[in-house]
């Protein structure tokens, strides 16, 4: 006897957002990346297919990071000292997008130079993050935004305490923004409203719910993401933005990933554990509705991509 499968009836859907512009579109990218568009909870194809699969971004920095795990230094090697080379290697590793994180040491000129060199080295769409200090973010992102007008970069990271300048320059120069709120559905919504109210078109906003790493509060982020996705499907316009998450950053902060010595034997092999930490953090976020995942280790990239492939080809 055939079973009748209960299906949810949703009114809303996730907005479709495209990052990057080709020469025909006023930029220089070889290809663009489109995410979002989902009309169900993630990967429930008995309801509807997944219109755009989640994209993988690899995070690189404008200067060689001094606080990254030696495991990451080992795999990226010399390229870490040169963002252009690093971006190329990231593209080879399977990235759909590059995240270039600027640092506090960068001057505005350095920042523009780094961004331009990455744009020159790869045809992938680009996300640019400031160093994470309000004044410095604005000081660097404004000239970057102006120097790359029309590329449809994503600029970030907007937070409630500092979003106006970034949103204004992104609007003026045809870019997108990444809006981050600290693991809270209402705070996410609120920031999305503030940014929309400034006049930013709704197909140029990515929301970043903040997730935490496996073992370090990830379950909060996981549930916030599920709730945001459900709210979006129920028709709440201010939660219908694709979600960008940063499992690479989160996982590689943890002791489990970062440290190889003086840890319990029960943690097992360091490298395999570290990559598992990043991969499983990312996987959980894929399940809960991530549209863009920013990763750091090429092996995690491969594993997460393979997983996504399986999820969308059921």
């Amino acid at each position: 006897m055939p079973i009748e499968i209960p299906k949810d009836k949703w009114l809303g859907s996730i907005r479709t957002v495209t990052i990057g512009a080709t020469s025909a579109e006023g930029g220089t990218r070889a290809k663009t990346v489109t995410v979002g568009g989902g009309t169900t909870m993630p990967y429930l194809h008995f309801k509807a297919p997944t219109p755009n699969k989640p994209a993988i971004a690899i995070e690189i920095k404008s200067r060689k990071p001094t606080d990254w795990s030696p495991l990451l230094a080992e795999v990226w090697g010399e390229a870490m000292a040169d963002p252009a080379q690093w971006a190329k290697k990231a593209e080879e590793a399977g990235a759909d997008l590059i995240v270039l994180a600027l640092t506090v040491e960068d001057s505005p000129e350095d920042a523009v130079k780094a961004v331009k060199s990455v744009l020159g080295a790869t045809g992938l769409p680009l996300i640019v993050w400031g160093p994470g200090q309000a004044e410095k973010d604005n000081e660097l992102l404004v000239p970057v935004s102006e120097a790359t007008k029309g590329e449809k970069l994503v600029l970030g990271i907007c937070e409630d305490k500092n979003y106006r300048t970034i949103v204004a320059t992104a609007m003026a120069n045809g870019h997108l923004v990444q809006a981050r709120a600290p693991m809270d559905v209402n705070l996410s919504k609120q920031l999305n409203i503030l940014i929309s109210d400034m006049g930013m078109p709704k197909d140029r906003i990515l929301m970043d719910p903040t997730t935490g790493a496996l073992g370090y509060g990830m379950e909060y982020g996981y549930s916030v993401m599920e709730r945001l996705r459900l709210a979006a499907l129920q028709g709440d316009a201010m939660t219908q933005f694709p979600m960008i998450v940063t499992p690479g950053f989160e996982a590689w902060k943890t002791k489990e990933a970062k440290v190889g010595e003086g840890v319990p034997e029960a943690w097992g092999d360091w490298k395999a554990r570290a990559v598992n930490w990043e991969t499983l953090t990312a996987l959980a976020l894929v399940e809960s509705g991530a549209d863009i995942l920013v990763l750091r280790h090429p092996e995690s990239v491969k594993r997460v991509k393979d997983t996504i492939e399986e999820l969308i080809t059921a």
Partner: protein
Amino acid sequence: MALSGIQIYKLLPQTNCKECGFPTCLAFAMKLAAKQVELGACPYVSEASKKQLAESAAPPIRLVTLKADGSEVKVGNEVVMYRHEKTFYNKPGLFLRVRASDPDLAKKVAQADAYKVNYVGMDFTLNGYAIEADGDLASAVKAVREVTKRPLILISNDAAALDSSLSLLAGETALIYAASESNYESLAEVAKKHKAVLAVKADTLDALADLTQKIQAKGAEDMVLDLGGKNLGDWLMRSTQVRRLALKNFRPLGYPVIFFAAQNGVEKEAVYAAHAIAKYAGFVVIDTFAPEMIYPLLVLRENLYTDPQKPIQVQPGVYEINSPKPESPVLVTTNFSITYFAVANEVEGSGLPAWLVVTDAEGMSVLTAWAAGKFDAERIAKAIKGFNVADKVSRKRLVLPGHVAVLSGEVEEELPGWEVRVGPREAVDLPAFMKQALN
């Protein structure tokens, strides 16, 4: 699904005879719906009504317990699709598959059985073993039983071998894997005889639902489902459909699910197992004993099965980070788990020693607790005094979270002799602060 008072009323005699101690059948029905009385108080309920009421009281996903002499694993009894709707209750059992033909069988199980890992004060282990009958099952069961007291899954299609092996496990509840259309009659017999749980597999959910009903008719009640599926996406849909159907009280699929993580290769095992843990599996079977995989899987399971209404709170107290010395600084934070982990993680990662004092802020983050009056100068001082922090340090130097900079004056008053410093607002900035400002 629980019945309402009115629905229950319709199943009662409706004679208002008052023998139950209530003035009317309806009043009794209301109390029943609220679970404040037992059905037995009414002597006149028909057998048919009793059966219907018992069924409606049963959980939508059957609670299945595997038991051995040393431990048990309970799965099922779940009530939601998403953890925020209530919580996920019974953590999936993580089982290691071993082979009866393996000459090192006992050694491998003994090694895995000794595995124990600590995560925020809790010790985690594997939950049991699945023995693949590619050799003599009974002797494998004997060998394994000598080295572990955890529950077992027996993987075999041979009813006779299962029968003799289960005889060795008297008093236990094991799981038999797996009944299919071709062998369910004999396996159901064995399961019934030994009170074992029976895994059931079929290619489609329709076939699976048919099969569980046939097995139930044979008298085997405790079942577990193998959903099949060619890859993760396929399995996710089946697993979601089964959970949805079960929660809508579709009994034939109201059982926990078993998942084999290495079915498409050991290189995918970690991801497969994680996927199953997140998406409704009741038993997850892995093939590789690798602590670097098992530890993150156990943490993932713990995280997702934490009650979202009751965030894990950290025990208030003094935490030593990076072996602090008397001259190391004293950092203060709240006992909200995320807050604690954020701070502890940053400080740990920096390599700098510190004493971290966790105050009882009723599980709230710094800002929330401060706004709610659960993290004020008085409470901070009480913690410092109560945990005798002054006895541990030579330099009385206290760092407050930047968000509560306003408290520094009051804290100084409450704690004479202490130098009170204001740290950064965010944990991520702590290492830099400690390097630059605390020397």
